[in-house]
């Protein structure tokens, strides 16, 4: 089953491979060995590195403040720090560009993509911090180690899977990011692939260029695998872990609260106020209720169905990766990530080609569209479900088996209930991605299907920003429940 999912996820890679061969070594060399390509590679690499570094700093810092200190309004901050996920990156960068053109270029691009994607690190890290057993830290203190030493040597290593999983997601998104960077005029490999398709209409060459992204993605995957190591992180002990005593910030609150408020203002305030402004000043602003509800319900339905399908597909992959740690499982798990580092146009064209040739009855039907979403957003579900499974002790399953419960019943009665929170979170993350997806939706949806994202695109590309704004606003509104679901704390610590 896992292998089937991996094969599905690797379809776009096969497409790229075929075209790389078609293009031939000479033309490939000519296209790849140009100064412009070097420039783009440097841009892509520094964007990914800086974006991940900054997301880790913000995600870790915020998670520590919210989970481990008595910063006022901790619960509210938690919600607000997850909420940027509901604002599509291209809406965010649009908001910034209309505020000041100075965000263009490298610094601005790093700032804005980080503001959009740091919750991908914050979420798993805060969940892990909450789940840690304080006993280890207390042991460290009892050995007279300082707080800082304990944090670096005891807490951080336990956060490793969360930090790495989050960083991997951020990295993959940055490799494939197009809309936001195009608006910020920061060219990367993905924007160059779009340029190549647009300019020479030389599809094979453009597709071939995507192999460079695949190489970057493989590097990322390998790095994450090496850094993660082979440890196990599940805790089985007598009773439940106590909640961790929180640090009193005291006067440091004067620093922490404005810092959190500032971050929220940058990540949420800027895009929302820019949308509000367009709603008010745009002459094309209108609220065609029929179209708005139709688009919203299509987006909701597609998002919900794709989220369910993707999580179901992620289950066997995550199970293999955690419970069956061998080379085959690793390859299967890793191969589900490749497609998400590719630009939407490459994935979409690959599916056009494959389905029109071998599965014509599903061409441009919802079935194909849902499969496309699943292929693109599998990593979001795999990372989260895998993290959940890491923390579910296999011993519980063994106990169940020893009591004579069959494997299926064990999965249903023991493993699944332990996994439900992470399945919900994975589904929510996929939902958020689907509601803002554009290219695959345009190419693969049944004809005349309109989603909030396609309506936003068609209005904003016609420069009718006022008319586009209600769709962006609705995209954010329908994403709020998913965001709330993500921010829920399954084990709310009792105040001590």
């Amino acid at each position, binding site marked *: 089953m896992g292998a089937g999912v991996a094969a599905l996820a690797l379809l776009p890679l096969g497409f790229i491979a075929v075209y790389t061969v078609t293009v031939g070594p000479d033309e490939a060399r000519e296209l790849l060995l140009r100064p412009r390509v070097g420039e783009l590679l440097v841009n892509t690499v520094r964007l990914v590195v800086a974006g991940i570094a900054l997301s880790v700093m913000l995600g870790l810092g915020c998670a520590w403040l919210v989970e481990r200190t008595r910063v006022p309004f901790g619960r509210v901050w938690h919600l607000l720090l997850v909420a940027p996920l509901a604002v599509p990156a291209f809406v965010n960068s649009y908001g910034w560009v209309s505020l000041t053109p100075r965000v263009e270029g490298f610094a601005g691009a790093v700032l804005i993509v980080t503001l959009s994607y740091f919750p991908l690190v914050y979420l798993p890290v805060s969940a892990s911090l909450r789940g840690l057993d304080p006993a280890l830290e207390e042991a460290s203190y009892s050995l007279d180690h300082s707080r800082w030493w304990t944090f670096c040597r005891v807490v951080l290593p336990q956060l490793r899977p969360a930090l790495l999983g989050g960083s991997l997601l951020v990295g993959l998104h940055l490799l494939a990011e197009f809309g936001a960077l195009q608006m910020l005029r920061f060219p990367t490999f993905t924007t160059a692939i779009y340029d190549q398709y647009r300019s020479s209409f030389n599809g094979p060459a453009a597709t071939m260029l995507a192999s460079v992204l695949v190489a970057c993605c493989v590097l990322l995957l390998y790095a994450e695998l090496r850094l993660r190591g082979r440890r196990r992180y599940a805790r089985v002990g007598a009773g439940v872990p106590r909640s961790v005593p929180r640090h009193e910030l005291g006067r440091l609150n004067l620093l922490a609260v404005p810092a959190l408020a500032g971050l929220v203002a940058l990540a949420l305030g800027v895009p929302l106020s820019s949308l509000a402004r367009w709603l008010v000043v745009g002459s094309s602003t209108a609220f065609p209720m029929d179209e708005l509800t139709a688009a919203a319900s299509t987006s909701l339905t597609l998002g919900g169905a794709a989220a369910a399908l993707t999580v179901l597909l992620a289950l066997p992959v995550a199970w293999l990766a955690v419970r069956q740690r061998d080379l085959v499982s690793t390859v299967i798990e890793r191969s589900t990530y490749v497609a998400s580092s590719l630009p939407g146009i490459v994935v979409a*064209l690959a599916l056009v080609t494959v389905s029109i040739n071998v599965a014509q009855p599903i061409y441009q039907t919802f079935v194909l569209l849902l499969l496309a979403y699943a292929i693109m957003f599998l990593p979001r579900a795999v990372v989260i479900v895998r993290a959940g499974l890491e923390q579910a002790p296999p011993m519980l399953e063994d106990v169940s088996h020893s009591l004579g419960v069959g494997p299926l019943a064990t999965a249903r009665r023991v493993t699944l209930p332990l996994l439900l929170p992470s399945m919900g979170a994975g589904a929510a993350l996929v939902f958020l991605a689907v509601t803002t997806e554009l290219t695959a939706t345009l190419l693969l949806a049944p004809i005349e299907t309109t989603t909030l994202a396609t309506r936003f695109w068609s209005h904003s590309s016609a420069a009718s920003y006022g008319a586009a704004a209600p769709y962006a606003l609705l995209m954010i509104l329908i994403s709020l429940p998913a965001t709330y679901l993500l921010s829920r704390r399954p084990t709310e610590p009792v105040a001590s």
Partner: protein
Amino acid sequence: MPRTRPLLVGTATAVALVLTLSSCSEEDDGPSITVYNAQHEELLTEIAPGFTEETGIDVELRHGDDFELANQLVQEGPDSPADVFLTENSPAMSLVDSEGLFAPLDGQTLRQVPDQYAPDNGHWMGFAARSTVLVYNTDLVSDAELPESILELAEPQWRDRIAFSPTGADFQAIVSAVLELEGERVTEQWLEGLAANGTVYDGNDVVMESVNSGEVDAGVIYHYYWYRDQQEAGDNSSNSQLHFFDDRDPGAFVSVSGAGVLESSDTPDDAEQFVAYLASEAGQQDIADSYALEYPLNPAVQLDDSVKPFEELEPPRVDLAALNGPQVIDLMQNAGFL
């Protein structure tokens, strides 16, 4: 196990909804055509109802960018569900034509627009046009400084003052026009000069905004971006004006939006009717009346007088089929634009 139930219920509901959605799309069995539309969506949703009313043929639209849909058609090949392809610029039409996917248009259909707006083989035709313009910030550029030819923008007096968007098909069509009219050497030098003088932006609208905000002095765009912004809030055009090049200068190049019937169409007659309607007086009037502010090509129809009239333009004659050929791409790659 009560806790697994919400998930199951959720999945079931989602599946049911998808099934409902799919069944909605299969309505009546009247004649209908599928149009892959890369022109602006609003424009087509204004034109299509008139066509349906006149002919009883339903129009189903799939929207996307020129390059997305053109590449999709190439991948679909003979199995394409599309009957008609519409673009914003002509190079996407040339791409699809180069793969032999268009059926020739009827002579009567073609005759509705001047013959320079269709390729010689008659496989597709222009149905709307956009003119190249220089947009300039009125505080930073005086009337006396305005260039007579787009070639002047490569000269030293424009150093660090000019912006353009070379990655889009729009600008590449302008480069093609320079190449057609002035030859390879001049084009090469011109691109070098532009690279030295200019700032590269992605998108005509971004160029216009930057000029308006005073970030750069002037930029090369198509006319309708500016006129449309004037009709919106005027936010991005209030400090700027348009300068039209004239006298068949390459800078006066007019790019056309194309329409063609696909060879793979099951209903070629209905598809041909639609293209004919687009270029007819009725269809062209819809274009003229729309928000689009692109020029209709049928001489019988005029755009409203807030926009510089089409007859006053003095565009150069350029072979549409030659636009954005490999040579243009090479030249632009050598100049470091792509």
